[in-house]
């Protein structure tokens, strides 16, 4: 459902009902123009207190525009996308990082300071901002801080920062719709589990023994109501 459609649904049972009675609503009406009811961007079963907390965090702003721009560049270096899969910055990763930094305040100082560290290091090397550097210059710095076990001692803080932002970008990407598709997670839908596929069992040298096969639930019996008449404990 797009924003306009969902706003319409929201209005029909809600505070806007009387308003709607007095004006004709068709597909071309942009209801966001005739009401100041704010549609919740995230609707996932919150209690009123939780929803208020989320909204407050969303109204605050932590990163500056320049910081977000740098995060976006780093995000696409960390997760550049692959073939049909988009880079991290196109999957909502910067919005996620903005939110989670406020939600988990322990991220605040290391992230702000880490970005500042990066800025300082870039100026030392190239006398410009990270986002103004060429791709090659950016990669040269990243190479120096992306491998924590081999980092030069004078760059260790940079490696710490990079590990943190790598975590946030990676987790942001792989919890996005596109990232989950890339990963190949196939669940979160009603289905019937009937064991590991045969070819997978074979590949791993496993099998279900007779006892397991005999005792386990048969998919065709799942809707039967349990009958205890011949069952003894």
């Amino acid at each position, binding site marked *: 459902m797009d924003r306009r459609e969902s706003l319409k649904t929201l209005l029909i049972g809600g505070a806007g009902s009387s308003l709607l009675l007095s004006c004709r609503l068709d597909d071309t009406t942009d209801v966001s123009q005739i009401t100041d009811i704010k549609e919740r961007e995230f609707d*996932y079963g919150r209690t009123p207190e939780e929803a208020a907390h*989320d909204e407050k965090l969303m109204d605050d702003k932590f990163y500056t525009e320049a910081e977000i721009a740098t995060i976006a560049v780093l995000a696409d270096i960390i997760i550049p996308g692959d073939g049909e899969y988009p880079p991290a910055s196109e999957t909502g990763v910067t919005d996620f990082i903005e939110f989670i930094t406020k*939600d988990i305040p322990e991220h605040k100082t290391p992230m702000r300071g880490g970005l500042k560290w990066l800025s300082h290091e870039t100026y030392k090397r190239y006398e410009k901002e990270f986002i103004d550097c060429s791709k090659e210059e950016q990669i040269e710095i990243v190479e120096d801080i992306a491998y924590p076990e081999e980092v030069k001692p004078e760059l260790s803080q940079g490696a710490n920062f990079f590990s943190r932002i790598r975590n946030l970008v990676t987790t942001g990407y792989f*919890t996005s719709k596109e990232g989950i598709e890339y990963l*190949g*997670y196939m669940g979160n839908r009603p289905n019937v589990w009937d064991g590991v596929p045969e070819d997978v069992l074979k590949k791993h040298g496993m099998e279900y023994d007779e006892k397991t096969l005999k005792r386990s*639930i048969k998919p065709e019996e799942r809707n039967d*109501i349990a009958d205890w008449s011949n069952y003894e404990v």
Partner: protein
Amino acid sequence: MSFQIIEQPTTYDVCIVGSGAGGGMAAKILSEKGFKIALLEAGPDFDPANSEQRTQLRWPYESPRRGAGTQRAFGDFDMAYGGWNIDGEPYTKERGTEFDWFRSRMVGGRTNHWGRISLRFGPLDFKRKDFDGKGDNWPIGYDDVKPYYDKVDKLIGVFGTKENMPNEPDGYFLPPPKPRLHELYFKKGAEKVGVPMIPSRLSILTKRVNKKRQACFYCNQCARSCTVYGDFSSSSVLVKPARETGNVDMFVNAMVREVITDGNGKATGVHYIDKTDSKDYRVKAKVVILAASACSSARILLNSKSSVHPNGLANSSEVVGKYLHDSTGSSRMAFIPSLMDRKRYNEDGVGGMHLYTPWWLNDRKDLGFTRGYHIEYWGGMGMPSYGFGFNMESLNGMVPGLNGETKKAGGYGVGLMEDVKRFYGSTLGLSGRGESIPRAENRCEIDNNKVDKYGIPVLKFHYKWSDEEVKQAAHMQDTFEEIISGMGGIALGQKPGKESNYGLENPGRIIHEVGTTRMGSDPKTSVLNEYNQAHDVPNLFVMDGGGFVSQADKNPTWTILALAWRASDYLAEELKKGNV
């Protein structure tokens, strides 16, 4: 404005405080017998089928924090309103001791999110003192509870297999689901080192038990509470049918302060604060049942002081709050190289593990500790949420890349993306859950200096593990490493050693706290009789985990349910006879 207590007009047969496993069961049994019930719950109404409260089948990106645990302790989609800390409802700890208290404020309480591990206590579990001389025996044995375990199995539904193992009683089991791939690996590794693994016993419907609840559709999300009632939650399986009898008045957002008594010390009802209008109310009843959770019920009793009960209600023994005990817990993670680059398929399965290890060393006397533990297992290609893909630098330098060369740990770019994909489903974990020995000095009591935002004096905890529990945790860690190496895996991180008590979690962390109003045949050393009835106050019952004398290594819910049913049957008879 003067202080005023508003009296509710009806006098009920029974007032039940708390709508979790114990309170839900009491409400169902007693309402179906025709008694008029007031059911009080400190949180809001909840029904997993209510779309406004639903979290089942939601995707991580539906949450702006991608499911992180900052608002709900076990993640954004977990179905517990509350957590380790609740705003305005503090608790304190004695210096040098630890206890973490998890509360869920909603109809159904913690049963909405629990692991559904539904184990019966065995004959030995009721008489551990006979076996090792420690703690105390229960005043009842397995045979007293067995008929009620049977009824609970049939009413609620639990899958499992008949194993005929001593002290792991079989029940009326629905057929279990087949093991997942990583569970077959675990089984191979465990059996190699002499550790048994059997199908789990979880209250999830692989088959239906009635027409009102659907069978499980294998989304793995029992912790989110099931919209088709395919698993057990008190809210949907007990409270809902109880309300449908028409004999239950539900009071939600009702924070109970104390039990009210008359001049003879008999309970006459409860005093609560309505969280929505902050006003004080009184509900009158012939019988009061506390089922607010072990510590909350103890708190209510200790706060119910009167000239007849100067130590708090039902506390002439001074045992209320004492013998608080939780399960022990310690965990380890592992990585299995041969589970890399897995073929993708939907292996969500039921919520929780399909196989587990029951305690297997009851006959050993040389372990240095005398109580057992079971092992829970986790892993697989699960749904990503906040934290997924963290710390790749601690994994991806361990094994050769796709081109056969060992990589530098860390990195970025397409190579990093491929690593996340390759390692997906190859990391897993083991958790031990053990029995601790109840001790009087591990306790909760009223903090003399602090009240919550409703003005109710709060609990102060005193809890320390003893050597028994620490040695048990050390044994868990040794066993975990043996199993991991038996299955061709690599244990991750440092093995927790003496300095961390072998990874032993803080008391409270496993959320199996029980024992604060223990039962017994001697009123001088126990609070309740064997029917969960207060020795001092015949029309007062406690039907949560408070009555436990000891809690085995088994999760307490199934025993809370069986005992609450047994106590409700007894109470109904006593009411009919005019004894209470």
